[in-house]
């Protein structure tokens, strides 16, 4: 793995007595696409602003490329930001916007012109130099904001919910654009979003945050398949999160039914949270199932059906390509590999999990 | 830190404000509550109950009220008409009706006095039509006419602005929900322009209540408003304590009328009727 480029150590930050980040530790590797994911108020934007230099942490250090940059002003840092609402300069043309940073660095005129051409080509807006900001659509403004940042050849690009203001289709297109851009530029992206789908699509590493604490760090697959607690499981996609009791290794009791599973090391008779993804719930004939229930709702979602089944007092959320009409009696089967066991929250850190989940 | 440095930019103004806004208010309060020899008294304040002063205050309130009502009645339809014009020239036409606001105050009084004077334009017009002369110069009516003329744009502008801010889809939504023209007017347009009406009323009522130049020049010494009483106390009788005391009373009336208007606006906004 490549080296650590940014290292946040013991970062604490509060605003007006309100703790926003509490002893946060996080490192970002060179060339990584890292996403800070969480609900609003979880501290993800504050983390990004601390990296960008717009906030100074109350405690802790920010190391960049081996140097302590905690006290360094934003204009002296080798990274650039794409702001949430683009923050384009409304009184300047597109070319002037893009040239802004380069002029400060006293680049030659020819160099600046080359760079503007290159950057506009990169974001698929060739020939837009003379246009005014007002004449652009939201998606185009977004691309200009990115172009304006990358012409300065930053080592890291910080992106603060850059797709938040765009509509769904455009957002999906831009996700692929961003991945392409990152690969072409070969730099580190630190991306902030509250959209789990965005995070899963683009990231190398996802950092799930809640109420100022990091909940889990991992690859999209890790986060999705093995959420560490109920908050992460709930935040990353829809889930069936059910109270259960770990009877012994590889056996868990949910809703008075014993399910075989693959987890070990939770002890015996321990209360746990059990996560089962809706696409992992298999509907079978009543006799074949581990438990039986009745379909209470059926919604067509295009690729699949979303079905709710009431079984043993719990509304199971099921995604399947097979249609089962409302009122039909079905059996529920779950493969042992698809049952995810999580510790019940107990430490202070995870209090945050409960109150929000 | 950077923020603190920027806050310091307000420093010179803070000094200026203390010296020339807050301190003068303190000085006027000091005079209002002391005798010429400097001892504490309520006499300057309570002298408002002297019949001359009280009469002047009541007349001022009356004329200011009449003037405000006339301005409101003239301005509201005007603002609606201006707002209803969907032409490109709307901006210019609105400008035409606001422009008099920026003309010199004295000039406006002069123009009106000239029109009203005994051998002025209005009377000679009436004369050629064989109508009796209008002898209103040096009466309260002349003062009200001139005040309306002076302050009308101050009523037009805020009401028009409030009306222009109403989104057409708000009106369309009301229509969609079954409201007729009259319902829309009373339930949508009036409540949404209330803030403009209130600031218009304040902007007309306060100067009308406190003015002394109009009554001085068009009242011919016969129309004595509270502003004239105060002006005379300072400039003719040199009784600064009395003048300050009456100014203080006037200030209270100004503040009270503004508070009244603002509370009325709040009520109008939250009330369901």
């Amino acid at each position, binding site marked *: 793995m490549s080296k650590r480029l940014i290292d946040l150590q013991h970062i604490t930050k509060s605003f007006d007595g309100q703790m926003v980040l509490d002893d946060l530790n996080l490192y970002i590797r060179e060339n990584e696409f890292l996403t800070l994911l969480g609900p609003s108020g979880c501290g993800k934007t504050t983390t990004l602003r601390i990296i960008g230099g717009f906030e100074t942490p109350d405690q802790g250090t920010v190391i960049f490329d081996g140097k302590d940059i905690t006290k360094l002003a934003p204009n002296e840092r080798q990274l650039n930001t794409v702001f949430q609402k683009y923050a384009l300069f409304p009184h300047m043309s597109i070319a002037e916007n893009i040239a802004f940073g380069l002029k400060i660095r006293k680049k030659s005129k020819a160099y600046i012109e080359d760079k503007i051409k290159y950057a506009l080509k990169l974001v698929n807006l060739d020939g837009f130099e003379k246009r005014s900001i007002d004449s652009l659509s939201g998606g185009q403004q977004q691309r200009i904001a990115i172009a304006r940042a990358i012409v300065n050849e930053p080592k890291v690009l910080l992106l603060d919910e850059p797709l938040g203001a765009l509509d769904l289709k455009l957002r999906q297109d831009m996700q692929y654009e961003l991945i392409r851009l990152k690969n072409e530029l070969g730099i580190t992206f630190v991306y902030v979003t509250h959209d789990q789908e965005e995070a899963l699509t683009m990231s190398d590493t996802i950092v799930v945050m809640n109420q100022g604490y990091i909940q889990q760090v991992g690859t999209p697959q890790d986060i999705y398949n093995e959420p560490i607690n109920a908050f992460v499981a709930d935040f990353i996609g829809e889930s069936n999160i059910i109270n259960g009791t770990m009877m012994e290794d590889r056996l868990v009791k949910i809703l008075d039914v014993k399910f075989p599973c693959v987890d070990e090391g939770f002890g015996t008779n321990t209360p746990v949270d059990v996560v089962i993804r809706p696409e992992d719930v298999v509907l079978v004939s009543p006799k074949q199932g581990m438990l039986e229930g009745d379909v209470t709702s059926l919604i067509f979602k295009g690729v699949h059906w979303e079905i709710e089944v009431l079984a043993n007092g719990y509304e199971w959320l099921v995604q399947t390509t097979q249609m089962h009409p409302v009122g039909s009696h079905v059996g529920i089967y779950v493969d042992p590999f698809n049952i995810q066991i999580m510790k019940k929250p107990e430490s202070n850190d995870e209090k945050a999990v409960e109150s929000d989940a | 830190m950077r923020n603190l440095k920027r806050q310091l930019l307000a420093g010179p103004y803070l000094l200026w404000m203390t010296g020339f806004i807050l301190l003068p208010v303190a*000085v*006027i309060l000091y005079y209002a509550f002391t005798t010429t020899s400097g001892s504490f008294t309520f006499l300057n304040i309570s002298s408002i109950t002297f019949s001359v002063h009280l009469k002047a205050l009541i007349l001022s309130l009356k004329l200011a009220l009449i003037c405000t009502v006339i301005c409101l009645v003239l301005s509201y339809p005007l603002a609606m008409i201006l707002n209803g014009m969907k032409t490109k020239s709307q901006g210019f036409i609105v400008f035409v009706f606001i422009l008099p606001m920026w003309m010199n105050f004295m000039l406006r009084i002069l123009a009106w006095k000239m029109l009203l004077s005994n051998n002025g334009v209005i009377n000679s017009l009436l004369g050629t039509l064989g109508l009796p002369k209008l002898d209103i110069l040096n009466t309260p009516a002349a003062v009200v006419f001139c005040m309306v003329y002076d302050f009308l744009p101050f009523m037009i502008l805020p009401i028009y602005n409030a009306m222009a801010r109403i989104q057409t889809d708000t009106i369309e939504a009301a229509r969609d929900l079954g409201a007729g023209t009259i319902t829309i007017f009373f339930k949508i347009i009036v409540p949404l322009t209330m803030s403009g009406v209130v600031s218009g009323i304040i902007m007309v009522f306060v100067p009308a209540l406190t003015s002394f130049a109009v009554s001085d020049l068009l009242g011919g010494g016969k129309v004595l408003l509270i502003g004239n009483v105060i002006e005379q106390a300072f400039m003719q009788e040199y009784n600064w304590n009395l003048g300050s005391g009456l100014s203080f009373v006037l200030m209270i009336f*100004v503040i009270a009328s503004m508070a009244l208007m603002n509370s009325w606006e709040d009520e109008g906004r939250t009330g369901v009727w």
Partner: protein
Amino acid sequence: MVRKSAERIYLFLIFLFLYLPIGVLIVLSFNNSKSKVHWGGFTLNWYKRLFSSSSIMEAFYTTIWITLASALIATLLGTFAALGIDAMKKRGQAIMLGATNIPLLNADIVTGISMMLLFVRFTRLGMNTVLIAHITFNIPYVILNVLPKLKQSSRTTYEAALDLGATPLYAFYKIIWPQILPGVLSGFLMSMTMSLDDFSVTYFTKGAGINTLSTMIYTEMRKGIRPEMYALSTILFLIALLLLLFLNFGPSARKELHH
């Protein structure tokens, strides 16, 4: 159709009410007769008399000086003040704006008197006291014009400039300044019109021997109306008209419309 014409007539009547007096004044300023109703032929006589009257010309110069100087100083102080206030927390802002509102809300007569009472304790009334008084009631207009522009020029554009390597000063000059400039300009022009228009505050703070046009017209009018006043009024009206046209349809206003 009926409604349309009724509206037209109403507009026209109000228009007459507002402009007829001024129109008559302007006409009379060229009337070669002292009568208010009879046309005695065209003349520029009153204008000549106006410009040869030393007291009127002196009042004119005083007015111009007070207007320009007070607007300029108020714009400087007010713009700095707006920048400082913008950086303050909520409570600080509320206190500053509360005090700023006093001269706007207070009756002119009380503002004038309170300042006079203060001035006579420390100095003689004269040009300087009028200037100080005008600056004082002008600053709020500057602040109230600049502050909204500052709030609009979102913090993020300033941060974006820092992010791209600009120093705070450069970012202010390149990003904040162009965005608040229209507010600064309209604050300046508004100050000028306020100064030009003021009577009450000047009346109480001017002292003997000094006149602005407003106070001079006032004194003259108490003696009777001289036709030179019509000429003066016409000129003042034209100045206000030009100032307002510039303020509303000038280069800064045009940009406004686009946003």
